[in-house]
């Protein structure tokens, strides 16, 4: 067999031909006979008690299917981690987009007027909208203290260090909500049959999350709920948990009407009602020695979870573990808190808490550098984690990562030194200011801590009647290349051609639960299981003597056909087993937080027009170590796409809130980068490999979201000599800062240096 010939090569994307010819089938392309269209009536106020629901005259209400909370056969919740989020509000509403009534009609255009004609009268209750209001507890909107979850990481003795520090550097950093803005809006079709139960087809990331939610809601056994993923037009975390809500609504309408029901959100509803990235506030207080070594620190990381707990505890956990960045902390105390407000629940978005806490860390490193008089390069060099040292959770770094070398290469690729010097010289005159900035960071692959053990994912591989091999996973394709890469792995493991392997469309009737498609886990964790299930097929065929130690692809196919001819089925399953020597303490938040980390250094070059205060990113170098690069084209695509979203996070994408409601829920006024806004994004890899992943894989999907925002704001500080600590940073914010405090840095240095 020819080793390593498929993993690492740019094979054609499995579903690529359908996508470039317009033949790929997305949810809204599907129509079922007698199908109705569904719509949602939402609360209009952020918090209150429902007193009366009125169906106004002027609508032929008898033509509509109407569902309220009392039509729910099972439990009125969207089951996830906790069960606090109702499927339909019945007594109280806790945010302005809370679903209350569902309507269905055969004419989709008749629905809009009907939705507007349902009046939900509420007695309004006081509501809260910011982290600070939530902390003040003047109103308790969730639990006994507005706190969904707290975590704490304690490493060493923090308190004894402060008196020995040459410098104590403090900073506060904020990030805003960000909309995932997949171009395909959320949508589902549900059908119901008393014998077969509920079937839903949808645009989604996690078939078994939807499956679990529908079982609880409809009070149905596992075999009476079927979830099928359609081609999914982008997700980025935005189709991790919210699809369960839409599936639940479509299912309730289908059960009540006895007809299939399609619910597709339009852009305005999708942007207003579905999840966004958690807004965050991070406070750093760091003890630093005279020669620029971090001695200790306190980090407080707080996120706004919105009205219900949903995934906030997990987002908090990942944010907390990444809060110390890729640096060595002899001691540190990191405390995290997710708080409730009366906004729609915030949720999963690529990076999942890490982009927030790493933004703070990397801005703070530049602040430390400035305060103690070192360069941004030198401060990082002196504090980088090295193999053998322990992370903030006391995980020993076993990977042979050399961050200094990574940094050195990124500096070279970006021509950092020459540019920095030139910009400093040229910035003295003219109406343009230029700057260059760095961010160094890491991202853990797979579920945090014990997560993968609890998930206990299962993967199947089966032989087909034509002699080919089919991969059976619930891992979904939504652009990242799941289908392609998992087929590459199976082909590589079996010594077959890429064309010999296909992959099933995720359908809970056909595929086992290989876990959700999140957390940069697909290639590393699920891929490893695909490899081992594939080897099981090989063992079976060897055991019966149909193949020997070596074989050609055609011999394998013949063997597979012959085995199936005789035994009807050839299948192999693999279940996740935690790697040996991995230890995690859920209580103390200590141990091996992730089986592997990816590492990166990003460098951004910016220019600011002093007439309009607009910023453009002129060059972007993204250098990372992600283990083995399985597919050079897909890997570059992941990084470049993530960097683009990171640039949007930093400079363009601002959610305007009013009383818990998004005001700019249109593509016209919520601005994501277009092709003319972005710099050349130059992507480079180092490949160290990874013993835990299939063929050396680690995670890649989320990593590129972490670095762009701090690199860009560090570059802006270099350009303007003013520190900005909050994103999104729009031209008006820059204008305000430059006109209000022209010598901000000087005064800050005076106040911080001791």
């Amino acid at each position, binding site marked *: 067999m020819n080793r390593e010939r498929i993993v690492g090569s*740019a094979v*054609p*994307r499995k*579903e*690529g*031909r*359908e*996508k*470039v*010819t*317009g*033949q*790929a*089938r*997305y949810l*809204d*392309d599907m129509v079922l006979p007698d199908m109705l269209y569904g719509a949602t009536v939402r609360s209009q106020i952020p918090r209150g008690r429902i007193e009366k629901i009125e169906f106004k005259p002027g609508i032929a209400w008898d033509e509509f299917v109407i569902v309220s909370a009392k039509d729910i056969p099972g439990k009125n919740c969207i089951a996830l981690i906790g069960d606090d989020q109702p499927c339909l509000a019945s007594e109280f509403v806790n945010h302005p987009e809370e679903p209350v009534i569902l309507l269905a009609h055969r*004419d989709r*255009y*008749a629905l*809009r007027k009907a939705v507007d004609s349902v009046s939900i009268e509420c007695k309004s209750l006081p509501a809260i909208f910011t982290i600070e209001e939530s902390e003040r507890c003047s109103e308790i909107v969730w639990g006994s203290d507005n706190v969904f979850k707290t975590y704490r990481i304690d490493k060493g003795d923090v308190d004894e260090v402060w008196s020995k520090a040459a410098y104590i550097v403090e900073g506060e950093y904020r990030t805003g909500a960000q909309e*995932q*803005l*997949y*171009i*395909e*809006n959320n949508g589902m079709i549900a059908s119901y049959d008393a014998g077969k139960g509920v079937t839903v087809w949808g645009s989604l990331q996690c078939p078994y999350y939807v499956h679990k939610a529908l079982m609880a809601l409809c009070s149905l056994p596992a075999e009476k709920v079927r979830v099928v993923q359609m*081609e*999914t*037009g*982008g*997700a*980025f975390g935005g189709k991790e948990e919210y699809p369960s809500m839409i599936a639940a609504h479509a299912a309730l309408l289908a059960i009540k009407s006895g007809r299939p029901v399609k619910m597709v959100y*339009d*852009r305005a509803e999708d942007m207003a009602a579905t999840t966004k990235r958690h807004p965050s506030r991070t406070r750093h207080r760091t003890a630093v020695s005279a020669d620029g070594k971090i001695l200790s620190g306190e980090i407080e990381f707080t996120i706004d979870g919105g009205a219900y707990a949903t995934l906030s505890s997990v987002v908090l956990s990942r944010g907390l573990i990444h809060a110390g960045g890729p640096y060595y902390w002899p001691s540190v105390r990191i405390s995290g808190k997710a708080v409730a407000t009366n906004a729609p629940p915030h949720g999963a978005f690529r990076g999942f808490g890490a982009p927030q806490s790493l933004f703070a860390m990397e801005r703070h490193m530049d602040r430390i550098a400035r305060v103690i008089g070192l360069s941004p390069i030198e401060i990082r060099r002196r504090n980088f984690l090295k193999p053998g040292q322990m992370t903030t959770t006391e995980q020993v770094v076993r990977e042979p990562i050399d961050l200094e070398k990574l940094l050195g290469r990124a500096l070279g690729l970006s021509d950092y030194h020459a540019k920095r010097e030139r910009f400093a010289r040229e910035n003295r005159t003219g109406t343009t200011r230029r700057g260059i900035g760095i961010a160094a960071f890491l991202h853990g692959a797979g579920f945090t801590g014990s997560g993968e053990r609890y998930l206990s994912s299962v993967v199947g591989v089966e032989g087909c009647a034509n002699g080919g091999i089919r991969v059976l996973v619930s891992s979904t394709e*939504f*652009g*990242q*290349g799941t289908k392609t890469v998992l087929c590459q792995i199976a082909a590589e493991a079996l010594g077959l051609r890429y064309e010999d392997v296909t992959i099933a469309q995720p359908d809970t009737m056909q595929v086992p639960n290989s876990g959700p498609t999140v957390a940069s886990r697909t290639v590393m964790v699920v891929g490893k299981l695909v490899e081992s299930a594939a080897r099981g097929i090989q063992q079976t065929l060897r055991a019966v003597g149909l193949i020997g130690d070596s074989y050609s692809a055609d011999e394998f196919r013949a063997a597979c056909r012959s085995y199936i001819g005789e035994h009807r089925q050839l299948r192999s399953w693999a279940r996740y087993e935690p790697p040996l020597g991995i230890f995690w303490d859920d209580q103390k938040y200590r141990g091996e937080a992730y089986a592997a980390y990816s590492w990166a250094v990003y460098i951004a070059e910016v220019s600011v027009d002093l007439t309009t205060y607009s910023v453009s990113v002129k060059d972007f170098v993204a250098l990372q170590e992600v283990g083995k690069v399985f597919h050079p*084209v*897909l890997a*570059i*695509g992941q990084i*470049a*796409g*993530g*960097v*683009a*979203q990171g640039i949007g996070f930093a400079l363009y994408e601002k959610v305007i809130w009013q009383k818990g409601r998004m005001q700019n829920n*249109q*593509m*016209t006024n919520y601005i*994501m980068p*277009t*092709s*003319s806004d*972005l710099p*050349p*994004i130059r*992507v480079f890899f180092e490949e160290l490999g990874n013993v835990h992943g299939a063929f050396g894989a680690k995670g890649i999907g989320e990593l590129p979201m972490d670095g762009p925002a701090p690199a860009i704001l560090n570059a802006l500080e270099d350009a303007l000599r003013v520190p900005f600590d909050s994103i999104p940073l729009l031209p008006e914010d820059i204008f305000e800062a430059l006109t209000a405090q022209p010598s901000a840095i000087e005064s800050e240095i005076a106040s911080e240096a001791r």
Partner: protein
Amino acid sequence: MIHSSENHVKSEISFTVNGEQRVVRASSMERLLDVLRGQLGLTGAKEGCGEGECGSCSVLMNGSLVNSCLVPVLQAEDANIVTIEGLAQEAQLHALQEAFLECGGAQCGICTPGMILAAAHLLSKKPDPTLEEIREGLSGNLCRCTGYVQIFEAVARAVRRAEIASFS
């Protein structure tokens, strides 16, 4: 523009789609996008925003690139329309489709039909565009997956192939 409803008066409207003469019954202000997707089953054009911002519903109408979510179907009377379904010749992909496949120009695929048509439109006006012209030419079509880098590469590759083909 109004969305279609069962209650609106409908009339016959004819136009050419992908080289074929078609007659539809629609109310005059019905969106071309809905007619293409609903009545003609041409679901390659996608609705991303419904307000002409994202370009995922792009089609070619009399050689111009239009957002079909903003075109009342009456305006398409007698027009010559090309959708993504009309770009490939039988089994032979268009050079842009090939290049998008090879370069990673399509990830989730939802913007891809519109993006490829926008690229085809650009190349019909400027057969040998600079990178800056490609960036500008595609700026009406949003992609959230790629960061556009590999889309630019795909367009450039299709151009190079066309040049080589015409040279040889």
